[in-house]
């Protein structure tokens, strides 16, 4: 614990473990969060992300492991002795207090002078874009406005850490998009270290500096949005974030993989595994192209479009590539592509797969 080389980490979770009876909610979590960054815990419901947040907040007690915040071991401190502000999905605004009183709630208790409190409340109302809402009661505001007030209340005491527990889930779609931009720019402006829990990958991808993908109580991958999307560390991540085609394949050596009678060459032969073994290819729809395909070039095949699903600007097409009809793939077309190339259900055209985008996970890695 020598101070010679200060850790760049603001929040350090070491070996966090949580047991609910026989259920292991969190398994040996190690995570380091840097000062000023916004980290999202992303995962399906029941993956332990909220439990982990509540452990950081001291609302839940870990069964093992330690938490160090800003050089201070807070593992066994009660919530009141930790340093954070928290925003819940339900807003948890005090309904009988005005917006101003809600924001001032934590300030008043610190025996701050009234004028100082009033000035701080005014400043925070400005900050969250609700300068005139001070005298109103929470139920006179929209959901998004209430969540802004909750954010202001959490930030009022200038905590070192901001915890957001699914803050946008209770809002309607439009409000959600607007508020996530606001929260992100506010967080960057204030530079407050923030941990946010979400099950919405779009939220995580657009807001986070780094994403922690969790599954069944364990961390699957930690990385930037691009890393998570482009280089998923596990089949779970590939499947959970974004759309992906999963193809059963056999390793042929030299980085070649056979699906049906089609053979794909992947850029990184080391990924492939032992010759003759079964494996799985993970391929994003946008990595299968139909433009500029040269007849007979490697990683290409003819395919027939069996179904087109209209989604707006893009369409999803189901394609049966010749030689691997048993495993049809999903491919994106822009609406313009479809019109210009005259693509319709039943069309036959050439496709190619980008070799450097092929991700391979041996079948054994699927378990657990």
């Amino acid at each position, binding site marked *: 614990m020598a101070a010679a080389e200060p850790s760049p980490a603001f929040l350090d979770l070491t070996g966090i473990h949580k047991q609910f009876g026989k259920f292991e909610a969190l398994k040996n979590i190690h995570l380091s969060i840097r000062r000023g960054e916004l980290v999202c815990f992303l995962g399906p419901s029941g993956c332990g992300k909220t439990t982990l947040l509540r452990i950081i907040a001291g*609302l839940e007690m870990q069964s093992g492991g330690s938490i160090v915040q800003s050089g201070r071991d807070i593992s066994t401190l009660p919530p*009141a002795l930790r340093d954070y502000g928290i925003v819940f999905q339900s807003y*948890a605004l005090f309904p*009988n207090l005005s917006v101003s009183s809600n924001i001032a709630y934590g300030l008043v208790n610190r025996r701050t002078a009234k004028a100082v409190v009033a000035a701080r409340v005014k400043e925070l109302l400005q900050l969250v874009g609700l300068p005139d809402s001070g005298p109103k009661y929470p139920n*006179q505001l929209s959901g998004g406005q209430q969540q802004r007030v909750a954010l202001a209340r959490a930030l009022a005491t200038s905590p070192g850490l901001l915890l957001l527990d699914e803050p946008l889930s209770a809002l309607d779609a439009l409000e959600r998009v607007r508020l996530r931009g606001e929260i992100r720019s506010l967080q960057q402006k204030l530079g407050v270290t923030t941990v946010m829990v979400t099950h919405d990958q779009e939220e995580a991808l657009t807001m986070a500096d780094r994403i922690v993908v969790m599954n069944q109580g364990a961390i699957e991958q930690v990385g930037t949005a691009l890393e998570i999307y482009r280089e998923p560390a596990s089949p779970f991540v590939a499947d959970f974030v974004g759309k992906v085609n999963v193809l059963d394949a056999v390793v042929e050596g030299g980085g070649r993989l056979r699906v049906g009678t089609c053979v794909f060459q992947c850029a990184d032969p080391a990924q492939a595994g032992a010759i003759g073994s079964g494996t799985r290819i993970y391929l994003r729809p946008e990595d299968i192209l139909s433009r500029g395909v040269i007849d007979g070039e490697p990683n290409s095949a003819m395919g027939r479009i069996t179904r087109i699903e209209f989604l707006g600007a893009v369409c999803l097409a189901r394609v049966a590539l010749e030689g691997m009809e048993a495993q049809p793939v999903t491919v994106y077309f822009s609406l313009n592509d479809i019109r210009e190339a005259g693509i319709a259900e039943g069309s036959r055209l050439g496709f190619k797969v980008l070799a450097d985008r092929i991700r391979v996970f041996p079948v054994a890695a699927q378990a657990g």
Partner: protein
Amino acid sequence: MSAAVLAPHALGLPRQSVHWSDRVGHGLLLAVSLLLVVFLLAPLLMILVQSAEDKEGAFVGLANFAAYLQTPALARSLWNSVWVSLVVTLVAIPAAFVFAYALTRSCMPAKGVFRTLTLIPLLAPTLLAAISFIYWFGNQGVLKQWMLALGIQSIYGAPGIIVSEIFSVFPHALMILVTALSLSDARLYEAADALGTSAVRKFFTITLPGAKYGLISASLVTFALVITDFGIPKVIGGNFNVLSTDVFKLVIGQQDFQRGAVVGLFLLAPALLTFAVDFFVQGRQTAQLSARAVPYAPRRAPLFDWLMTGYCLVVVLLMLAVLGMAVFASFVKLWPYNLSFTLKHYVFGLVDAEVGTAFVNSLTLAAACAIGGTLLAFVGAYLLEKTRGFDWLRSGVRLLAMLPMAVPGLVLGLGYIFFFNHPDNPLHLLYHTMTILVLCTIVHFYTTGHLTAVTALKALDNDFEAVSASLKVPFFKTFWRVTLPICTPALVDISRYFFINAMTTISAVVFLYSPDTKLAAIAILNLDEAGEIGAAAAMAILIAATSTLVCLAYLALGWLVDLRTQAWRRPALN
């Protein structure tokens, strides 16, 4: 860092250090549990102990039970209690169901008035009904001939108990059934209509199954209320013995604590069973209705609506006839010979029979319960629902808070005698004081207060306390600034409930009063025993009038509280 990384499991589970403000909460929770243990659990356990001991205090196992069942007179009381309670249940439940159906499923006019009038029986001690029926059908009753024509020889005994009990349990059964019938999903009926289902089939396939748990619950509650009631069989039972009057005779008359304890346990059994079944059923009832259900809104159907109105009118008129007869009789000189107006029964009751002091005692008791009971029930519920730590204690306290509902007042009072009258008990000095009457009454009616508070608290966001902690505001400040102001309407309800019940209760306190702490409801019992039925009626009416006034006062208070503390519920004016 490496030295700080210890194997987590080798050390056992780490524990969070406790903040001083949480210690305050733990201390209060301990205090509430201690109160419930001393004033509920210990007295009940004493009954068990007594029932298994002989007069010298030696353990005799089940010998007292065997002796009891071999005493023909006592065994007959057991049977009497059971069949009378069954008959009352079989009559009161269908009657209340139709009434509840009219209130929830018809477009009957003046529903509010009907609903309010059915609450009349709750305003006075149950024995008011018995007194009134004596005036109607007693030896000098107005309608005695009608009764004889039906082949009933005398109102004293089973017939009187049955009609009086039907009158007094009606509002209890009605309340449960109205709740059950209002928890209906209109979409089910719309789907049935779309399929062309007949009204009768809808009733049997949707309505009745939907209200099934309510019916079970109402039947059990009715049965338990009747079998444990003391006032009615005491006044109109004549020589017809039931369990509740037996307990009183055995314990107060013969000082036979052991057999009293045995009968007490017989009374506790059906109530405990009711409690267990009800607990199970309640869970089902709420789970049945999803959050998305659309409430049912009845449509006009002239014939049905008029039929329902007619029925409810008859029921309400019968109720008014019961109350009205007591009022009338309390103001006439000598029933039935001289019907001129007089206040002599009131004067006699209040002055000569010193019910005046008893009345003041009752008001003192009711006020103390209204304040103390509300405080205890609400703070207890808050500590249970909203604070952290002491998890090992919580489920036990929850169970204790629910237990009073399962314990008939007579049994509780019996336990208090055994426990507090015991010479070795340091709390012996409480015996025969007003304090013990207050504590006993609070405990007796604790569950409803507790449940009302829990319901109000559950409606609050669970994260208030977490937010407060993160803002470093201790829980009791949030309790004072947020929880309490939001819950004031519930507080008013709880307090009214305690007040009215303390005014009218007899069962538990009948064992515990002293000449100095005699209560009005008990004084009525004594007047009746002394043959002063006119004065008894007058005093019962006085209690009913007081209860009514208090209810009106609470209504005004509720309105004021709403104005002062609930402004935030209203949408913006601009």
